[in-house]
């Protein structure tokens, strides 16, 4: 069954993996201990240390989470890398940044279980998330916090290994806060999706900056214009135009949940 073997690692839809390069031979060149050696404990500790060295050298493959739009994935170089922060720029009131963020979070929930939303403005409307494929049974909303508490909460959430994605609309982000969050995301391995409306505040430590705008074509139909301002894959790129997710391409919630279960099983080994 060659196809099965090929599909074994990282079968999660939308999660791609770069296979790590071959590693150096294992450093097990020591001789067996002489006979009659009394204590086995130091020996055990040595072995444990060797295993630790080997596992430290083995880096988990870089994972990417699909955005759900192929054009955008291409522009980002294969989707959004996990264990990092991503900024979604929402300069206008009705920017599609929320839709984009939820769509990505729904994809991420196929790989880990939980999604956390920090609802500072009390304006989240969960019924609207279902059509975007967000598993509401695995969504936790943190409400009514602001300022230092919100930053602390975001840091704790990103540091947790159970959270697939954090969605946090915030006004400003500075270098200090983004650095703290970035370190937390690296430790936790989840996806940090920050929706920003205020562009002042200087450079940030985020992997991606994506401007999300809605535009009208000549026939007054709405489209989403996504501009990659910054990514690990390279600098600014041409804007990508994608369709507004509409009733026609709703992800049925049940199919999404099934995806999630399969992906969680496949990705758990990584």
């Amino acid at each position, binding site marked *: 069954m060659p196809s099965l073997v090929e599909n074994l690692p990282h079968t999660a839809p939308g999660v791609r993996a770069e296979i790590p390069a071959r590693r150096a031979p294992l450093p097990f060149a020591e001789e067996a201990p002489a006979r009659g050696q009394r204590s086995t404990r130091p020996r*055990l500790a040595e072995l*444990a240390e060797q295993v*630790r060295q080997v*596992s430290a050298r083995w880096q988990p493959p870089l994972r990417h989470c699909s955005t759900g739009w192929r054009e955008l994935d291409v522009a980002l170089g294969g989707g959004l890398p996990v264990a990092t922060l991503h900024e979604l720029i*929402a300069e*206008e*009131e*009705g*920017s*599609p*940044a*929320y*839709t984009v963020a*939820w769509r990505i979070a729904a994809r991420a929930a196929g790989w880990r*279980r*939980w999604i956390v939303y920090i609802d500072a*403005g*009390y*304006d*989240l*409307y*969960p*019924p*609207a*998330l*279902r*059509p975007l494929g967000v*598993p*509401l*049974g*695995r*969504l*936790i*909303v*943190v*409400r*009514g*916090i602001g300022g230092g*508490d919100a930053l*602390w*909460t975001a840091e*704790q*959430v990103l540091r*947790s*290994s*159970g*959270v697939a994605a954090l969605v946090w609309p915030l006004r400003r982000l500075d270098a200090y806060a983004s650095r703290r969050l970035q370190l937390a995301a690296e430790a936790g391995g989840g996806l940090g999706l920050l929706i920003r409306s205020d562009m002042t505040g200087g450079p940030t430590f985020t992997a991606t900056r994506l401007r999300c*705008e*809605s535009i*009208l074509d000549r026939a*007054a139909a*709405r*489209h989403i214009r996504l501009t990659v301002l910054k990514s690990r894959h390279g600098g600014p790129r041409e804007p990508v135009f994608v369709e507004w997710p509409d*009733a026609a391409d*709703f992800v*049925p*919630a*049940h199919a999404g*949940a099934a995806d999630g279960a399969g992906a*969680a099983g496949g990705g758990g080994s990584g």
Partner: protein
Amino acid sequence: MPELPTERARRAAAGAAEAGGPLVLARAEGGARVVEQACPRARALGLRPGLSLAQARALVPGLTVASYEPHRDRVVLMHLARWAYRFSPAVEPVEPGTLLLDITGCQRLFGGEEALARQAVTGLARRGFQARGAVADTVGAAYALAVAGPAPLGVVPPGQASAWLAALPPAALRITPAVVEKLGAVGVRSIGDLLMLPWSTLPARFGPELVRRLQQALGEVWEGVTACPPAEAPHARRSFESPLADYVAVVAVVEELLTEVLSPLRSRALAPRRIECVLYYERAASRLLAVGLARATHDDRHVAELLRQRLEQVDLSLGVVGVAIIARQVSRCPGQQGGLFEPPRTGEDGALGNLMDRLAARLGHEALVRPRLLDDHQPERAFRYTSVADAGCEPESNGDGLSAGALARRPARLLPRPVLTRAVVERPGGAPTLFVYRGREYRVVRAEGPERLETGWWRGPDIRRDYYRVVTDTGEQFWLFRVLDRRAGSGHSIGHWPVLPGLVSNGVDEPRWYVHGIFG
């Protein structure tokens, strides 16, 4: 409680509808089953301990037989002992059915010794155990009087123990039946007879026990009540010689106490759902810090971190003179095997549980919620938030039976209160062509609607709104509504719908427009 074993067995056999019938307890002896104890009704019918069960059944048809289970009696007795702590801090259960209470100083709280004894006896009777009680100077006298006294309740005035004891049979002295038999053989029928014999000769003929029991009953040899400690939550305590005001020092002690409390629990596969930390101050009331856990866990470090977080918020400058850690809501928690190279990984749900604990410790439980969709056409009522503390943190399916299509056309952001806007409408009853939101003017290029939503009449004064999805020339989409109030002045109490400024019609028949949501 002379009948405790049979009463206990009768309670257990209550389903057999043997409410008042004769009952015996049987145990296996050799190949046969033998009556160990008989209830008063059975004794009245001639059944005696030692009789074989076959004989007993032949004597009394329809006899209920239960097995003799002293371990169950012991459990019941321990329960009753715990109950009896309301009368005295020193309670000693003595098998098979006796509770010894040291009520020195306690009688005042109950209106005297007799009143206390009566309360105890009636309390036991209410629990289904027929009891006899006695109050005396010594344990021995009280026991003898309770077992063999003339009345179910007896109080011996101080110093009169020997006079009361004289009339009682020697068997009431807690001596073995063999000694009682020997005493009977020499014509000793009461303790009074016994007291007239020269004591120096008694040990040689009846063993040393008899004299000791006599002396105990008369108060010549002291006998105390060995209190069994009441069941307590696992805890550990430490007090300091001088007040501590240093966060690091307090945390170090707290962590040490935590290990002291949790390690024995872990070895019994138990874990608490709640940890309480009490800080004692010299000059102020003690302070309780409680940490709830989303799930019982063996993870000491996690609990320690939660406590550290709580301690950070406490002013320690008053000087802490003592710390106690108490484990509450202890439940079974199967252990996890430790790893050789790294601590075992908690699953994703475990990691989320730990995260929820940390967030709740700082933000409060009400800040963490989970959404549930409801089948209601009113947009504000189409979902409900449940606290994580109530809903738990297990993943749920989306199987709420709602069709995705019904939810399709709702904005991702719904303003907590609709915002009154100025809008220009060209055609009466139509969609606006221009509106202002947050100081910005939006020109409408396309509008879909109206979608009429009304409150049900059972939810207070009825309100009707016409909703429009409008697309602006900037490509943004908003959810606007116009208030249709049929009855002037009906907008005061709106139930679940937010009370809106200017919603009450003031005679001018001018539609009012609100921005309620943003499709973003």
